[in-house]
Structure formats: structure tokens, C-alpha cells
């Protein structure tokens, strides 16, 4: 089970029949329980690609299969059941809050999928607990809580629908470093403890290299790299991807030059410290 793209292209249609292919000939398989990052420059097709994953867009060519459901090409077919598998967290999700209370906002999704009031409330309370929103917050207006709490509310709203897959579009954009770290730790916990599949769209190479086990690079609507972080940063094509290097990797390069030690792709403090100790400088 999982998500399967076969030769998928999507063209946006402009005026006078001009077409712009945002993604082109994508073949991709994401299995249950993976943590995948999709990266690439602005305009490389990342958002278009992930919007297929919960049927917000449907392919112009090729097929998308989501947990056994072939993405219907006709709009009249029901896509609700497909959406239940994949929850999409947009950029600045707190902009979409609208209910009177935090609890009601989180309940909106599950109710929309047909759950009864009590059942939806139960799911909402569980989701709120998972994202670390205390009971005292739940009865407050979602517009009278802090920015970090608003974002957590929006995320809880998605989790309450119990999707298998969470697609996160730039989840840390606009947060301060502390807030960004908290949000990413939260997603990592959801991934590890609840075994959810995570598809992360991000520009932040520090975050991508820290959390993602598999990295997919898009360029001009095509997949140009698919592998783990070590392979990515050591790839001879790395320069062509116009990506930033994570801070840890830059530091390793600097150390290897100035101290004349062998370069090793490392991505966090612990690993760098143990490497330096091993070397017996």
C-alpha cells in the first residue's frame, strides 16, 4: 500500500490554449511508513506534485494510485475516500482556522468525513493531546492564542482525520527557530510513534537532512534525484540542483580543509563530535 505515480504529467492551461507542464513524466512510489522530502527551487513542481497526493489535482497524463484507489479522471466520481488517506498541511495553515473554538476547529475535518459529534470530539481531543495543546486551550477562540498554538491547532485538525500519510508543504515557514524545531520534532514523533508516512516539501536543507530518510529532487517538473542524504550531497550532479548545503556539511568541509582530515558527510553535532574523537587529532 502507498502512493504510486505512473508517467504522471500535469499541465496548467492558460488563456488561448497555451499549456505549461508543471510536472512531466513522474514515476514515483512512496511506501507506507516512509519519511520522504521533496525539494527543488521555487517553480520546480513540488506543490503540483504533492497536490496530486490528496486529489486536489488530477493528472493530465498518466495515473496516480492512492492506497489502491486510481485517481479518477472524471470529476464526478467521489474523491472523499481518497482524501481520507492523505492529509495535506498547507503553508501557513493557521490562516485557515475559522471556528469559534479550537476544539470545534479540530473537529471540523472528522465531522466532514461523516463522524458523529461525540466521535469527532473524541478524535479531536486525542489529536490536540498529540500536538501538545492543553485542555485549557480547547475552549478558546483560535484567533486568541499564540501563533505557535494556531499552527498546532491546524495540524491537529488534519491528524484528527487519521490519515495514513501527512503531506507537509513548508511546515516551518515563518516560524522562529525554536518554533520550527518544535514543529519538526512533533512531525518526527508522529512518524516514529504512530508510524505515519511523511511527505515533506521544504526549502530548508538543515531540516531535510536532519529528518528525511529519502530525498527527491525536482527540477523543471522532473525527478532528477531520488536517494538518501549521503548520496545526494556526494552526488557529482549536486551543483546542478542549485540547493543549499546543510550547515553541518559546510562545517565538515571547512574542517576537512583547515585541519587536513578526511571529509565525511555528517549531518548533526553528535556525529561530528564522535568523528573528531575517533580521528585522534
Amino acid at each position, binding site marked *: 500500500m502507498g502512493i504510486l505515480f505512473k508517467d504522471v504529467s500535469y499541465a496548467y492551461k492558460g488563456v488561448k490554449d497555451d499549456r505549461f507542464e508543471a510536472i512531466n513524466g513522474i514515476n514515483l512510489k512512496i511506501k507506507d511508513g516512509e519519511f520522504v522530502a521533496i525539494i527543488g*527551487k521555487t517553480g520546480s513542481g513540488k506543490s503540483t506534485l504533492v497536490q496530486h497526493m490528496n486529489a486536489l489535482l488530477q493528472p493530465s497524463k498518466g495515473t496516480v494510485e492512492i492506497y489502491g484507489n486510481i485517481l479518477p479522471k472524471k470529476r464526478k466520481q467521489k474523491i472523499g475516500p481518497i482524501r481520507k488517506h492523505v492529509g495535506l498541511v498547507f503553508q501557513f495553515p493557521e490562516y485557515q482556522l475559522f471556528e469559534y473554538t479550537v476544539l470545534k476547529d479540530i473537529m471540523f475535518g472528522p465531522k466532514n468525513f461523516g463522524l458523529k459529534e461525540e466521535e469527532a470530539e473524541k478524535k479531536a481531543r486525542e489529536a490536540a493531546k498529540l500536538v501538545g495543546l492543553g485542555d485549557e486551550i480547547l475552549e478558546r477562540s483560535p484567533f486568541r492564542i499564540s501563533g505557535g498554538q494556531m499552527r498546532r491547532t491546524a495540524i491537529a485538525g488534519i491528524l484528527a482525520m487519521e490519515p495514513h500519510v501527512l503531506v507537509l508543504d513548508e511546515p516551518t515557514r515563518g516560524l*522562529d*527557530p525554536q518554533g520550527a*524545531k518544535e514543529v519538526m520534532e512533533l512531525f518526527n514523533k508522529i512518524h516514529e510513534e504512530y508510524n505515519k508516512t511523511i511527505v515533506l516539501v521544504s526549502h530548508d536543507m538543515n531540516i531535510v537532512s536532519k529528518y528525511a530518510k529519502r530525498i527527491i529532487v525536482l527540477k523543471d517538473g522532473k525527478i532528477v534525484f531520488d536517494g538518501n542524504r549521503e548520496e545526494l550531497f556526494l552526488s557529482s550532479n549536486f551543483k546542478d540542483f542549485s540547493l543549499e548545503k546543510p*550547515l553541518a556539511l559546510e562545517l565538515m568541509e*571547512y*574542517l576537512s580543509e583547515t585541519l587536513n582530515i578526511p571529509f565525511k558527510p555528517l549531518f548533526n*553535532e553528535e556525529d561530528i*563530535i564522535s568523528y573528531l574523537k575517533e580521528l585522534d587529532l
Partner: protein
Amino acid sequence: MAIIQIKGLQFSYDRKHEAINNINLNIEKGKWVAVVGPNGSGKSTLAKLLVGLLEADKGTIFIDGLELNQKNIKEIRKKIGIVFQNPDNQFVGVTVRHDIAFGLENQLVPQPEIVKLVNEYAELVGMKDYLDKEPHQLSGGEKQRVAIAGALAMNQEIMIFDEATSMLDPEGKKDITNFIIKLNEEFEKTLITITHDLEFARKADYIIVINEGSIMMEGIPEEIFSQSEILKSIDLDIPFSLRLYERAKKDEKLKDNEKLLEVLWAYCLKM
């Protein structure tokens, strides 16, 4: 004489707790000062007080020798400009051209002069081909460039950037960061950058750490970084290189390796 002189500044939003509590600060002309602090520390409040968007309860602010008050505010706004965090909230023109011209029109600059200045500064920030574009056709970074062009066109000597890159993608962020540095180095503007980001703040001449409305610590980046315990105690995210330096310094096996520590410390200050 310092171009900005702040004495005994006091401000409260609710008359209960002080958002700004007895701040004293002098900033020399042409210097770049980074103001850092956690959420709710009063950083942005200070910026708003400096440009007269808020009025102090107590204390004085002198900008280029002029006291900030009702009488002088118009004169002072010609000297000090601000670029805010959210690029969408400060784009007032229908097009890039109108947005850059907005401040000049308010200052009653003659029309031919405005046309000349708009072209000149649009070119300078690399937005000359975008003059007739509307805000929805621009990226966040491009909008921030337009804001900078507008401020430059007014020829303000002091520029404040209040988290001006935090909503941008890495490309936009890099672009605007480089521009901010250029404003200081090439155009010799006095800069105040307000940020959470110590990676960015370490490029400044001087750092001021604010917490709970007061100045907690101030100094050149080297002095600030050597007291990282204090930065951590107020939940500031210290730079990656500094974290690594500190771990090495505490590690039994690495702490006596002077060469390694020296190299790491140099990296902390350099990057």
C-alpha cells in the same frame, strides 16, 4: 555624536507590564546594530517606537539631533525607514512603480524627480523590468526589494529591518540578506536589524540582546557568543557552529586540542 540616542525609554501596551523597560542606547552613524531576543521580548516594540509608530510613556529618542515628538515626526521620517516582516502587508501601490513612488509623493517631491528616482532605485534593486507588475505577480523576496527601493529613494540615513527575511524562501532570504549588508557597506546606511537569527546577527558590528523589555547584554559578536549560556537561558537558538564549538570545549578528549578549538571558534565568527 551618535545618530540615534535613546534615554530611559519606557513603554507599556496595557499599563500593567512594561514592554520596554528603561532602555538606554546610542547608535553611531554608519554602524550596523543587530537587536536579538526571544518572542515577546520587546524587539519590534522598540522598532515601532523608533519610527514613531508608537509613543513612549517615558524617556527620549533623538534621531540625528532631533527629538522624536509630534512636532518633529515629519522631519524624522525623512531620516529613518523601516521594512517589516510580512511583504504583503507593506505593499501599498497598485504596481511596483507606484509602490516605490508612494513615500516620495507623500513628501511632495516634484513629479519629474519622482520618475527619475523610481527608475534609478528600481534598477539598483534589480526590479527595473518589473515596474508595471502587480503585487500578486511578485515573490516575497521581490516585494521586499521593492520596499527597500522605496526606502532608498527617500534617501533615509537609517534603515530598520524587522525580521524582514523570516517569511521568505532561502533564495529570497539570501538575496535580501546580501542587500541589507550592501546597504551598510556600500551605501553607508546606519542599520538596525531585528531578528531571532543569530547566524545573521553575527555579521553585524554590534549586537544587543533584549529580554523582557530590557537590554540584557550588548557587545561585538565575539563578546556575545562567548556568553552563549545567557543566550540559551532566554531560548535563543544559538548558531550550529557555536553549539559544536561548545561541545568540543566540554568534551574530555577534545577540550585540550587547542588547534581544533581555535579553528572552530574562527569559524563561529567568520561565517
